[in-house]
């Protein structure tokens, strides 16, 4: 984990309200898919770091790609970053996806809802790199007109199934509807997205007796496990907290769906 000023290399405007950037940072050396970084705004009125998931990692060039949705002051400021700008970064943070959790699974479903999709790109790249063939990616968007960001990049690595809220592309409905209409029967799921979607994934995994790993988010202040702001209820006494609470920033953000009470 390092705290330093990263340098903006490429800025991307990917879809309506969706931006991305490659940041030059030594945090890339130790980063894994599913981890996140905290970015500071330049404003003295907005002092908490903004947790942003890592979309892609280029270890050789020491770069991290971040993709975010403009949701408030911080992400709006980041959307106006320009090449060469420097930004305070803390990371990499959290556990990330653990592909050892595959344990022989062959039919892999990767499900991303909205701004939940970016951290899955690095995961799919990693899974693809291990030679796994049966990777199906389910991506949920609001509407084709707002932009199916990252979909083409996922298509280079895996079979992609699209769902939209308004039916303007792919299945009309959610990523779970897209899974249903694909007729596939995954034996493991990795997912990131809004809470209703993650609840659906958890339920699907429990009904079908398969493991699911879900990436959670919560308001956080420190990002390193000190403030205890971002906890999730767990089904067991957490080893660190000794209560049924785990820190999303540290024990997570990726949890086995069966272990968390969402």
């Amino acid at each position, binding site marked *: 984990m390092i705290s330093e000023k990263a340098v903006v290399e490429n800025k991307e405007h990917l879809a309506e309200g969706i931006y991305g950037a490659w940041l030059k940072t030594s945090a890339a050396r130790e980063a894994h898919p599913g981890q996140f970084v905290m970015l500071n705004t330049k404003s003295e009125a907005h002092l908490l770091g903004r947790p942003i998931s890592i979309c892609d990692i280029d270890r050789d060039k020491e770069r991290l790609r971040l993709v975010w949705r403009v949701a408030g002051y911080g992400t709006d400021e980041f959307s106006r970053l320009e090449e060469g700008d420097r930004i*305070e970064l803390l990371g990499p943070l959290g556990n990330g996806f653990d592909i050892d959790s595959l344990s022989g699974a062959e039919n892999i479903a990767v499900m991303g809802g909205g701004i939940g999709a970016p951290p899955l790109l690095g995961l799919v790249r990693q899974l693809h790199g291990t030679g796994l063939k049966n990777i199906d990616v389910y991506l949920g968007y609001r509407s084709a007109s707002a932009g199916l960001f990252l979909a083409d990049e996922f298509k280079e690595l895996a079979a992609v199934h699209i769902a939209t809220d308004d039916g303007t592309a792919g299945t009309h409905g959610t990523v779970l509807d897209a899974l249903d209409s694909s007729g596939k029967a995954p034996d493991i799921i990795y997912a990131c997205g809004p809470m209703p979607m993650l609840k659906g994934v958890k339920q699907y995994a429990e009904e079908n007796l398969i493991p699911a790993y879900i990436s959670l988010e919560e308001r956080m202040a420190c990002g*390193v496990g000190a403030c205890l702001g971002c906890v999730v209820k767990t089904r067991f006494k957490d080893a660190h907290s000794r209560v049924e609470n785990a820190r999303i920033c540290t024990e997570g953000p990726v949890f086995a769906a069966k272990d968390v009470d969402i």
Partner: protein
Amino acid sequence: MNTAVEICGINFKNPVMNASGTFGSGMEYCGLVDLNRLGAVVTKGVAKVPWEGNPTPRVAETASGMLNAIGLQNPGIDVFIERDLEFLKNYDTNVIVNVCGHSVGEYVEVVQRLAECDNVSMLEINVSCPNVHEGGIAFGTDPGALEEITKAVKKAAKQPVIMKLSPNVTSIAEMAKAAEAAGADALSLINTITGMKIDIYKRRFLLANRTGGLSGPAIRPVAVRMVYEAAHAVKIPVIGMGGIASAEDAIEFMMAGASAVAVGMMNFHNPGIMTEIIDGIERFMQEQGIDDLAEITGIL
């Protein structure tokens, strides 16, 4: 030039420490901050048994500050002693343990357990947390209750006792005097100021607990004023805190009467801030020809 300060007979290599609750037990930050450089590590509040804390959301950003309603989640004194205090034995810094409880008896039990621990320099008694419904602030807003708990803790304590005061009172001087009269060895202030934030679009409170404690630079002038009032009301030393973000802020608190200072929310913004403040204090002393911080402590 001497950056060291002495509080209750304990030597601090410099007057800078973290505010309880913003730094865990140092473990989470030890890869980013050299704990050996700090005057002290102040641990997160610990109780007799593990506490779950409040529902989420527990934190919300506000203008130049933040609200929190963690609710003193902690693993309990047993785990704290065997894990957190053991970890801190690896560092050359003072350890100040923040103690919380729901009743006088619970505070006293934790203080008794800590009496056996040899790497605890001081105790800080949290009678000012606004986010727990029993204990906490209930002891810190009534002078009679504050005196009662101070006396009970002092009787059980082996280490010097710092009473951490709440700003959510009409007269901080009266509270400071009550703690001193009951035997407190030092005071620390301010804890957070009770606040509230509403999401007007969702028509909901930002925090699940509805109210939370405000911290950060937004509260600094209030904190400086209260440190000044408390320090002038008592003879025991005062540790000042509330939105410290720079060496200049730290010096301001010392001139107002603080013998040492604690950095809270700003650790989240910049994990290197405490060491930067220590360096900045040294620079200030050089520039101003100050040999010892005692020369500026409480000069106003």
